[in-house]
């Protein structure tokens, strides 16, 4: 399912907004028993605006899991989340966002990516206009 959401981001967002000024941080970590760094699919998300990082300790997923209640009001319709480690999820921030104690200017987040994709698509339209 994570793969489906990732593919959607590549084909339906990044490919359709090739000139959008945007940075994407793809944070990869093990969640399923068969997951491993060696299973990372480099061709799935190959846009040049994407930075890929392997998070062996799941530190980012745990950090967001611990802060999920603080951002629950920005959860996209159709999404739901309860747990310790946030994964198969997106978080979209505006251009003025700054991270001191926590990132500011969160537009929406969603989990799963597939469940929140319509909100993400609409937010891209608001930021960048209609897709090509």
């Amino acid at each position: 399912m994570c793969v489906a959401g990732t593919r959607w981001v590549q084909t339906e967002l990044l490919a359709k907004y090739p000139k959008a000024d945007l940075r994407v941080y793809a944070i990869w970590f093990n969640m399923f028993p068969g997951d491993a760094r060696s299973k990372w699919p480099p061709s799935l998300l190959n846009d040049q605006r994407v930075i890929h990082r392997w998070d062996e300790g799941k530190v980012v997923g745990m950090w967001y899991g611990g802060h999920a209640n603080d951002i629950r009001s920005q959860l996209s319709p159709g999404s739901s989340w309860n747990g310790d480690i946030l994964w198969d999820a997106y978080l979209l921030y505006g251009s003025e966002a700054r991270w001191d104690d926590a990132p500011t200017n969160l537009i929406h987040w969603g989990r799963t990516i597939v469940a929140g994709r319509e909100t993400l698509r609409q937010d891209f339209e608001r930021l960048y206009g209609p897709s090509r």
Partner: protein
Amino acid sequence: MKFRALVAAIGLWVAFGAIDARGPWDANQPIYAAPSLRDLKSVDELKTSFNQDRGKPRLVLLLSPT
């Protein structure tokens, strides 16, 4: 003489881009570096990158590889 002319013609053909290392079918496509995967050791590393990219919208994806 004919051989020299042929060599010169091929040289011009290459020089003007008719032959490309990527092949003529995608000669107009930009060459992109393959994605690379580096280790992330702490949340602070993401925080630093996040703040360096201020001025543009940012999308954080939390993913598992399968």
